């Protein structure tokens, strides 16, 4: 009895995969990576979400109700902006007498007040001074990554479960502080150490009496915490006689709503009482939304990786099927229909996609662990917690992976089914039939031209696509160009490689010639392998040029806009939104300082809304660049005159001579006349300005937002003198023009590094493509390489030949990508011209660095195929089947 195979093609498909596991790995490598990124990003955000859930339930653990003061209407507007304004702004507090009142209410078991504000641990490190005889020092702000720095009061209530001492004792006087365990561990502090804390604007020294842990996570969200004795906290955190909120625990038998009503009754409408557990959920949700943004970015990059992956899969499939032409045509000769061949290939791709997605999910979990550990290493404080993989995420990853694989294999499968049964009988060569690339060239050129027309049309205003913004139109045009170029690449491979011919032959001799000839032999394959790299490089050089241009712009703007020799601003806006006015007083006294302008601000009421009112010295107009629109500086300095920014004036149709009525705290209603409309070219501290010396209510403010000044001579001696004065004001930061430029550049560079990090994933995927293509090309040329070895080519030379070939592919991809990226960057900047961007700068060194990196990476990708080629058994290679 002979066996009967019910599904012979399925069997063949399965056997194929079983026999060639490496093929699966090669084909699916890109899918594996793409799926892995999706999964990792999902795990990462889900885990953070659950960690934040835990964190907030930790914050409110054991608490039933929380009493908050009702804030004034306009305070809410500022709370919404994150409270990051340059102005000190007082939130309402609950008088601490209320705690006692609440405590005595029926049903209340315990009540304690909480004081919370910004406080900054600082380390003062001595530094060598140059000429000045005073001791110089450098201030280091201690923080855990980007997490905030908080100060609070130590809860003495027996019901408070949030902070628990790991070591030491609670703070009992104004010289003691308890530090959170994360900060203590990261910075090597222990009980008994002295530490300086900056809270408000003046630093003070404390003894660490205890180390505490917050709800078992060290510190909430990685923030640094300085916990003081209650009265001290009130004084330091601007909460004299009050608390920020009151936590309440109710009796077991009490009804929560009844108690809530009683408390609200105490407050005359000034107290808001919320259910603690509901608040926990609400606050966690807020944070989660913020994290979603991060997740979206990760998904975009995963999408890019998958897009590149699709290119590679299609390519690999095509090559694999080409190798199996004989096998497939034999099946055809034996009577298998075209349709069956199509299904055979598709079922193989389904197998592969399932396996690839499975491995991808596994790798994604690994990646998430790696990212988490990495962030921990860099002290990027996110709450600790277990990694969470949701079923949805796993399914999404799998579906995306599987569908991308299957979709990319459709075309190659159709092609494979077209194979003629005669191929099996013919003496076959593995070289594909040379189809004319002319049609492709014409079609691709048409698409590219269309893209260019659209792009230039939008940039030079002779074309306007409806319902798309200018930037979207540019993006659309760029997308069309990109697709057009992708279509053309196979037809321009030969001319491009032609450029290398002579150079490579001169440098590498016959090996160079062979390598260039090989990449010309299969222009489609060379092109699509290069395209994968092109995508990554386009994005990288786009990011590169944009940021280089922004940097150059920042540099010229700082040089043009800031005419002052020095600028002083708050180092940590959270802790202290400004600089104590004592500093500007000291600077004015200094004989080296020639001209100085302070900027101050206060909150006033304007049309029943809060408004930041700025004040400056007259010297400001000499120290930074302002542009006069109408009115005059001379009128501005008069009493009851007011200056307004151009943008504000335009928006609210304010003109010279208009009267503005403001409600000034403790002064009442005042009327000002608009005397000067001007443009302030740096980020302005306010929109309405008065002359500082004209009004006393600005003297009541204790902080300057910014100070600009000139010195007689900018030299080391002056610098040292300034440093010495500044060392008494650790919350202030002194920068000269170079410092300002450097700061702007650092921020841009950090952003660029993050983008580079993500984009390198797509380059990494492209490298797999190069490895794939080369190993298949080596496989195809087994004979040829065997022959070369037989007639006396060293292994080393064979390897070199493969490396050279790889370098051609990567140079091609890098060259196309870089050119496109630079062009797109130019278009983008051109499109942003109206928004004030004018600088287009290409960093030659960075561009070549990336091309260099691509070539090196291409050579690395060629290592495996090269080794395989050089180790080939000569006899097997040259013998006949």
């Amino acid at each position, binding site marked *: 009895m002979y066996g009967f195979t019910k599904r012979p093609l399925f069997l063949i498909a399965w056997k194929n995969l079983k026999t060639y596991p490496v093929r699966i790995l090669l084909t699916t490598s890109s899918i594996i990576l793409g799926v892995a990124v999706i999964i990792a990003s999902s795990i990462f955000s889900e885990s953070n979400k659950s960690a934040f859930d835990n964190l907030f339930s930790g914050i409110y653990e054991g608490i039933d109700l929380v009493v908050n003061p009702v804030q004034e209407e306009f305070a809410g507007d500022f709370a919404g902006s994150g409270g990051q304004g340059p102005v000190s702004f007082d939130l309402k507090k609950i008088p601490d007498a209320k705690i006692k009142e609440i405590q005595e209410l029926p049903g209340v078991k315990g009540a304690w007040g909480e004081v919370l504000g910004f406080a900054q641990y600082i380390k003062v490190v001595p530094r060598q001074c140059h000429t000045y005889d005073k001791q110089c020092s450098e201030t280091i702000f201690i923080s855990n990554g980007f997490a905030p720095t908080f100060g609070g009061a130590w809860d003495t209530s027996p019901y408070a479960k949030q902070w628990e001492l790991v070591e030491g004792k609670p703070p009992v006087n104004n010289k003691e502080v308890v530090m959170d365990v994360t900060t203590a561990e990261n910075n090597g502090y222990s009980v008994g150490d002295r530490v300086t804390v900056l809270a408000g604007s003046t630093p003070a020294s404390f003894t660490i009496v205890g180390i505490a842990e917050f709800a078992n996570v060290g510190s909430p969200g990685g923030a640094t915490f300085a916990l003081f004795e209650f009265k001290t906290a009130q004084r330091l955190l601007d909460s004299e006689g009050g608390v920020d909120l009151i936590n309440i625990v109710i009796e077991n038998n009490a009804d929560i709503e009844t108690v809530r009503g009683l408390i609200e009754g105490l407050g005359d409408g000034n107290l808001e009482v919320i259910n603690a557990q509901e608040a926990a959920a609400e606050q966690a949700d807020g944070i989660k939304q913020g994290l979603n943004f991060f997740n979206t970015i990760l998904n975009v990059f995963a999408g890019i990786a998958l897009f590149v992956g699709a290119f590679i899969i299609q390519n690999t499939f095509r090559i694999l099927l080409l190798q199996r032409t004989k096998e497939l045509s034999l099946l055809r000769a034996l009577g298998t229909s075209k349709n069956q061949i199509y299904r055979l290939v598709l079922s193989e791709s389904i197998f592969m996609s399932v396996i690839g997605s499975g491995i991808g999910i596994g790798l994604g979990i690994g990646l998430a662990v790696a990212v988490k550990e990495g962030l921990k290493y860099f002290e990027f404080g996110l709450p600790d917690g277990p990694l969470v993989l949701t079923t949805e995420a796993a399914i999404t990853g799998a579906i995306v992976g599987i569908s991308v694989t299957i979709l990319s294999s459709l075309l190659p499968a159709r092609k494979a089914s077209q194979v003629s049964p005669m191929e099996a009988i013919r003496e076959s060569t593995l*070289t594909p039939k040379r189809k004319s690339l002319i049609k492709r060239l014409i079609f691709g050129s048409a698409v590219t031209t269309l893209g260019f027309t659209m792009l230039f049309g939008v940039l030079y205003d002779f074309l306007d696509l409806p319902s798309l913004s200018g930037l979207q139109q540019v993006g659309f045009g760029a997308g069309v160009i990109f697709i057009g170029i992708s279509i053309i690449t196979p037809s321009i491979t030969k001319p491009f490689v032609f450029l290398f011919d002579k150079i490579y032959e001169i440098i590498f*001799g*016959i*090996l160079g*010639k*062979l390598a260039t*000839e*090989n990449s*010309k*032999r299969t222009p489609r394959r060379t092109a699509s392998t290069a395209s994968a790299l092109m995508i990554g490089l386009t994005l990288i050089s786009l990011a590169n040029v944009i940021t280089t241009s922004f940097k150059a712009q920042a540099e010229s703007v700082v040089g043009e806009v800031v005419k002052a020799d020095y600028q002083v601003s708050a180092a940590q806006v959270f802790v202290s939104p400004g600089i104590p006015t004592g500093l500007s007083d000291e600077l004015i006294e200094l004989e080296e300082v020639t001209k100085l302008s302070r900027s101050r601000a206060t909150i006033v009421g304007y049309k029943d809304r809060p408004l930041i009112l700025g004040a400056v010295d007259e010297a400001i107009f000499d120290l930074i660049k302002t542009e006069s629109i109408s009115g005059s500086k001379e009128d501005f300095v008069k009493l009851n005159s007011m200056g307004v920014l151009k943008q504000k004036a335009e928006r609210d149709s304010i003109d010279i001579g208009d009267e503005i009525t403001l409600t000034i705290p403790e002064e009442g209603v005042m009327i000002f006349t608009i005397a000067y409309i001007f443009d302030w070219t740096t980020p302005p501290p306010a929109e309405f300005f008065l002359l500082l010396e004209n009004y006393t209510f600005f003297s009541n403010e204790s902080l300057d937002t910014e100070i600009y000044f000139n010195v007689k001579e900018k030299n080391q001696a002056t610098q040292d003198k300034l440093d010495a004065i500044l060392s008494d004001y650790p919350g202030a930061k002194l920068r000269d023009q170079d410092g300002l430029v450097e700061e702007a550049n650092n921020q841009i560079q950090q952003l660029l590094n993050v983008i580079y990090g993500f984009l390198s994933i797509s380059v990494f995927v492209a490298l797999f493509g190069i490895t794939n293509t080369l190993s298949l090309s080596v496989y195809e040329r087994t*004979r*040829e390489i065997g*022959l*070369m*070895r*037989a*007639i*006396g*080519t*060293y*292994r080393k*030379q064979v390897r070199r030949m493969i490396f050279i070939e790889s370098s051609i592919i990567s140079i091609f991809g890098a060259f196309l990508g870089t050119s496109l990226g630079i062009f797109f960057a130019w278009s983008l900047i051109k499109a942003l011209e109206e928004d004030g961007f004018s600088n287009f700068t290409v960093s030659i060194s960075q561009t070549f660095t990336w091309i260099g990196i691509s070539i090196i990476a291409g050579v690395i990708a060629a290592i495996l195929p090269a080794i395989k080629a050089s180790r080939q058994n*000569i*006899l097997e290679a*040259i013998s*006949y089947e």
Partner: protein
Amino acid sequence: MTKLIETIDLTKVYGEKETAVTALSSINTTFNQNQFTAIMGPSGSGKSTLLHCLAGLDKVSSGSILIKGVDLASLNDKQLTKMRRDSFGFIFQAFNLIPTLTAEENITLPSSVAGKKPEQDWIEKIINTMDIGDRLTHRPNELSGGQQQRVAAARAMASKPEVIFADEPSGNLDSKSSKELLVFMKSIVSELNQTIVMVTHDPYAASFAERVIMLKDGEIANDLDNPNQEEIVSQVTSLTDI
């Protein structure tokens, strides 16, 4: 005549233990300079294996091969490659040429990979002898089978090797091209003082050689000096009959 290659108890076994197949057993023979030798034998007699071993493409199981007194087994891959490049020439049955290179580039390929300039006069002489002067700029797929094999023969000689190994060089050719190629090969030996060791199963091809070694089951069955075609045919028949 000078002894060029000497084999001592040359044995080649494929596989291991139960599956072991002896392809060559204790071959003791010599190949002289400036001689055209043919190795013949029925399928599976070991003739190709012998050629591959002599050419350093395959490793022997026991015994040794001395090329001008140097034992091939004592050379590492790099030295062997150098030996093949500088001292040996090769003509295979098919796929002799790199498809992306022109005929001329194929001919000078061994000296190119050696990084040496080919000897102009010598190359010209070979090209004339092979009568391929007008095909030099063509790629292999633009050449006829006979022309391809002649280009291969020219390449084999280009670096003035000590010996040319030919594996069924006329196996894929029609009778006219086959005769042309063999005539050329014979003239290489007589006029250009080259040495050729050729494997063939074709008595007609073998009849161009000055010496014919008959192999059967991995052993030398006969060693003929200047045999004519009839002698070879009868020898082959007697070997196959047994």
